[in-house]
């Protein structure tokens, strides 16, 4: 009988990602209604040391699949390992973050174990022993509530939506799972991980984002956005208009065909607020708009707006925030 919640605790290079702690938090809230215990799954090479922290964060058991072939993520290797863990743990619910890894891995595993999967969920509750998941569709222009009535309920959660769980005093039982993954099962092999050299946080995980739009007028002008971002410890984003005009790289595009972000504070500079841009940032907790066009739709969703020239306001705002931080 399938029981309990299994949280896939994503790690890279031996470091646990925030999504694991976010998953453990929501799992703890659901577990009363779902029944059974909250357990965690870790996959990698020499990662059992993470079990200690996972125990403190509420996992009763930590299922560990280790091996040389699992040192670096691969969809085939990790899917086989997670499948082996699921078969052994027999959970009712499997949770993961909707991260680069989670979005790639979960559907492959769902196909292996015959589970239903709901991606990128922003709210979860339990009803009658089943998870009811709320998730945005049409890039947040609408929401749906769904369940997975019969199979294992696989659910990935949007990063930054649930607060990470606080460490307590628990400890977990470690269960080693032999997934028998060697390089021969991996046909898509990660040869290299190119790291973007940036001291700024990742867009989808950032607490604060400063974004520039068409109003930036050039890529060089983005330096004022970067200066404001650095004072705030923020990530830098851009609208599609800015990317299409060559002012910013596609990797930082926020919107329906870019990244969907969910920060505490989103500062939109020179962004008009096209529907497809708003789809990517409208769940931000506080939105600030700086735009000289008072009619720009962005002001309809902004908590605070300044109708003025961003080239005047942004550097001044940077100075003001510096002053506040120094106090």
């Amino acid at each position: 009988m399938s029981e309990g919640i299994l949280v896939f605790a994503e790690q890279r290079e031996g470091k646990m990602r925030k999504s694991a702690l976010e998953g453990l938090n929501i799992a703890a809230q659901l577990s009363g209604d779902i029944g059974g215990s909250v357990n965690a799954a870790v996959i990698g090479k020499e990662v059992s040391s993470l079990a200690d922290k996972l125990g403190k964060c509420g996992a009763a058991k930590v299922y560990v699949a280790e091996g040389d072939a699992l040192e670096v993520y691969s969809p085939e290797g990790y899917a086989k390992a997670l499948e082996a863990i699921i078969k052994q743990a027999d959970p009712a619910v499997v949770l993961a973050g909707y991260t680069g890894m989670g979005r790639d891995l979960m559907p492959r595993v769902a196909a292996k174990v015959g589970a239903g999967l709901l991606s990128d969920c922003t709210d979860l509750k339990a009803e009658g022993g089943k998870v009811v998941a709320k998730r945005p569709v049409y890039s947040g222009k609408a929401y749906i509530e769904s369940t997975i009535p019969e199979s294992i309920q696989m659910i990935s959660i949007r990063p930054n939506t649930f607060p990470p769980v606080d460490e307590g005093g628990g400890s977990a039982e470690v269960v080693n799972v032999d997934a028998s993954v060697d390089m021969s099962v991996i046909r898509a092999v990660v040869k290299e991980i190119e790291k973007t050299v940036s001291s700024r946080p990742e867009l989808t995980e950032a607490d604060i984002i400063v974004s520039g739009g068409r109003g930036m007028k050039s890529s060089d002008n983005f330096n004022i956005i970067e200066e404001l971002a650095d004072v705030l410890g923020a990530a830098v984003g851009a609208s599609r208009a800015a990317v299409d005009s060559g002012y910013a790289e596609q990797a930082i595009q926020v919107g329906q065909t870019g990244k969907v972000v969910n920060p505490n504070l989103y500062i939109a500079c020179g962004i008009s607020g096209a529907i497809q841009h708003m789809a990517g940032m409208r769940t931000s907790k506080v939105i600030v708009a700086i735009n000289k066009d008072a009619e720009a739709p962005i002001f309809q969703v902004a908590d605070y707006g300044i109708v003025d020239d961003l080239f005047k306001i942004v550097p001044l705002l940077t100075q003001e925030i510096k002053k506040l931080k120094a106090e």
Partner: protein
Amino acid sequence: MKQAPDTEAKIVVNPDGSGINFDGVKFVMNPYDEYAVEQAIQLKEKFGGEAIVVTLGPKRVVEAMRTALAMGMDKGVHIDDPALENADASATANVLAAALKEIGADIILGGKQAIDYDQSQVMAYVAELLDMPQVSNISLMEMAEDGKSAKVSRRIEGGAEVYEVSLPAVMSCEKGLNEPRYASLPGIMKAKKKEIKELDLASSGVGADDAKNKIDIKNFMSPPERQAGKVIEGEPEETSAELAKLLREEAKVI
């Protein structure tokens, strides 16, 4: 390939929460699928072979298929069955996998997600069902000269994973992979004569059980409305100072 509402479309939820009101909504080729179609055509131009566009959906999707054919795809396979009207990712992947098995492609490309349900599942699901390797969200592809493997890269948090993948393989495409071409007028004329094979559930080769949904949608909701907030007025020195103060003291976010 799939058809989806245009990114500029307004999405209106029926008052009873039963679904979306699509009256007046313009449907286009799912934007990420354009990169897949373009990549397929470029591969065909370089290595030869045949580029086939496969779609599941109601009659209207033929329009998007004709666009793909006008861009340069050779022929289409259209799967349409009333039983698949609300097919979820699992059902869709099972039906597509059955049709793709029949075709026997060397490389299966699709968008990284459809901009309707945004689940980002079907391609990886298909890869597993066909026992093929997968790389999702690719933004770079270099095919080996012998056409038997490819070097592809996909963005992840803080960087990119560079893969070497043997073919056959499934890949989902991200913006930035290429610049999708526009259909030319002669292309549009030619597309009208290209073959689109019509299949239903029975002829697609999928088992009826595999085409069943695993997900049950309870209801549709509009997103929470955001209220327009405060517009801060004054000289730049005043407004910027006021904004900084509000963010710290009122919103408590900095």
